[in-house]
């Protein structure tokens, strides 16, 4: 109940944010030095023809009017047509978003597992000589962003060892089942083990590359909140009662230390979702990131606009969910 109520409240706040975001996107993209109308025409088009295309796209009207028209269509689910691909934009998002979510969720699982395990490891090294080494290690880990991991993995596992595929989502020759759009899920739904295996193998490198980049901050926050929690009286109490150290760590300390870590993981997931763009480009993974980069190269405004908006919607949704979860897990924050 609390989760739903918070979620509802947060989503209400998200609506005006999204409106402002859409205005900003609109303005940022309309100061463009390139002319999308001219780009959509064949190279031998006359000036009049280009002018006609501009008028048809509504690009000759004042900016606020253009926005009002766009918004009017948008609330009816019409986000315009791609200038370059000459298709409606909304289905394009529908086709690419599940792939990106699949990648981001898998990467987040990798980041969480590595982050939490690493945080516990760092914490268990406290006061020992190895601590300094481990801390320098995390600083160095934090210096490798996702796209460097992605490139290094391609070099090591794809080129040197030739052990892993590093383009696309499936082996060529396998047909892609489409039920929900989530490939792993779809493969299971239609009962194709070979498709599932191929998809999982293709997803492994991108997901680990993306996850690795976002694990070190989780390690650090978990470690420092564990250090904070261990100063509390209830830890000493538990010790006096003869509770074992492992049990103190896992049952008493971790429960409280996980809260700040969870907040950070929510923020991280937002960043990770954006970071998936580069990983998609590097692994030629057909998702929203590649759609976006292609659109940017072709100055395909309707696509850029909707993809940008979709990224924001996802981030806002994640933030609202994390806030709700936080309240569920931390009764102290609940208001009567």
């Amino acid at each position, binding site marked *: 109940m609390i989760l739903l109520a918070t979620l509802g409240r947060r989503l209400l706040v*998200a609506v005006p*944010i*999204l409106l*402002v*975001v859409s205005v*900003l*996107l609109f303005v*940022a*993209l309309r*100061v*463009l*030095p390139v002319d999308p109308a001219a780009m959509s025409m064949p190279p031998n088009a006359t000036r009049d023809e280009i002018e006609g295309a501009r008028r048809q796209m509504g690009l000759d009207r004042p900016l606020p009017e253009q926005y009002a028209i766009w918004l009017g269509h948008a609330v009816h689910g019409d986000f315009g047509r791609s200038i370059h691909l000459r298709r409606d934009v909304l289905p394009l998002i529908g086709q690419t978003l599940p792939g990106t979510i699949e990648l981001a969720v898998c990467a987040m699982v990798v980041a969480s597992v590595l982050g939490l395990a690493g945080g516990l490891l760092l914490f268990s090294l406290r006061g020992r000589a190895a601590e300094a080494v481990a801390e*320098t290690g995390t*600083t*160095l880990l*934090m*210096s*490798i*962003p996702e*796209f*460097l991991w992605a*490139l*290094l993995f*391609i*070099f090591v596992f794809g*080129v040197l060892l030739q052990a892993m595929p590093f383009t696309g989502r499936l082996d060529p020759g396998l047909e892609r089942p489409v039920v929900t759009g989530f490939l792993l899920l779809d493969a299971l739904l239609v009962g194709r083990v070979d498709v599932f295996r191929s998809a999982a193998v293709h997803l492994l490198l991108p997901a680990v590359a993306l996850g690795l980049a*976002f694990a*070190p*901050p989780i390690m*650090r*926050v978990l470690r*420092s909140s564990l250090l904070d929690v261990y100063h509390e009286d209830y830890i000493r109490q538990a010790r006096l009662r003869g509770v074992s150290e492992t049990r103190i760590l896992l049952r008493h300390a971790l429960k409280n230390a996980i809260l700040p870590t969870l907040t*950070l993981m929510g*923020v*991280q997931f*937002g*960043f990770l*979702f*954006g*970071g998936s*763009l*580069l990983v998609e*480009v*590097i692994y030629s993974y057909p998702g929203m990131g590649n759609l*976006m*980069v292609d659109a*940017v*190269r072709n*100055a395909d405004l309707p696509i*850029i606009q909707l*993809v*940008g908006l979709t*990224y*924001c919607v996802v*981030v*806002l949704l994640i*933030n609202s969910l994390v806030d709700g979860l936080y309240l569920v897990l931390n009764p102290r924050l609940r208001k009567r």
Partner: protein
Amino acid sequence: MPRWLRSGRVIVGLLIVLAVLSCALFAPLLAPHDPDEQDLLATLLPAAWQAGGDPAHLLGTDGLGRDVLSRLMFGARVAMTVALVASFGAMAVGSVLAYVAGYLGGWADWLIGRAVDVWMSFPPVILSLILMTGLGTGASNVILAIVLVDWTRFCRVLRSEVLVVARRDYVAAARLVGFSHWRTVTREIVPATIPLLVTLLTLEMGIAVVVEAILSFVGLGVKSSQIAWGQMIADGREAIYQAPWNLLAPVAAIFITVAGFNMLGDGLRRSLDVRMVEGRE
């Protein structure tokens, strides 16, 4: 010797940053070749120590026969320029807004807080791509895009610090003595937040190096006539089987530079004893 210089991390970080900076500044003197000089008879040479390598090209040559090491050194120029200018710019915008929001409170705080909310709902990579679409390529636009994206990193963290500092007794005392608002902020509050600012600034420089590389990699960074690490990576990816150093060299350069800034920032954070929100990007 000041306390912050006694930290091992600070010294190592500083040495790395200074080394990269010297490569950038003295690239014309240090580089063994003209970075744009093509030698179409010696394309995609492997590194000097590998079979078929040429001692004249330590890290080999790229697809047009240009010397990788020389390009790496000239690439440091764009990376360091962007890192320094963009992070100072982001700090200027973000910290001024943070002081205004934290000190004045009220509607100014509300307005700035909502602006941060809007900005934070964009993943940074997406926002910078959109801005570069609008602005067009070029080093100065890369800098502008980073400033416009990353001011929130400073604003968010610094605002909460200002809130704490502004409630201290000596700030109230300064007001009672008759200091104007301007003088209270500049003389009492700003100095108290300098350690945090320095730390954030250093970490932001590392972030700026990465963002510039990302934008140049996608082809939306500096002009294609300029040498940038991100572009070298994009080119090197094509030649990954024949001459892997085309790819590995710029990857290593980015890692070393970012690690330098991160070590420096981390060391400063510890020795200046700044409570800081952990987070990346």
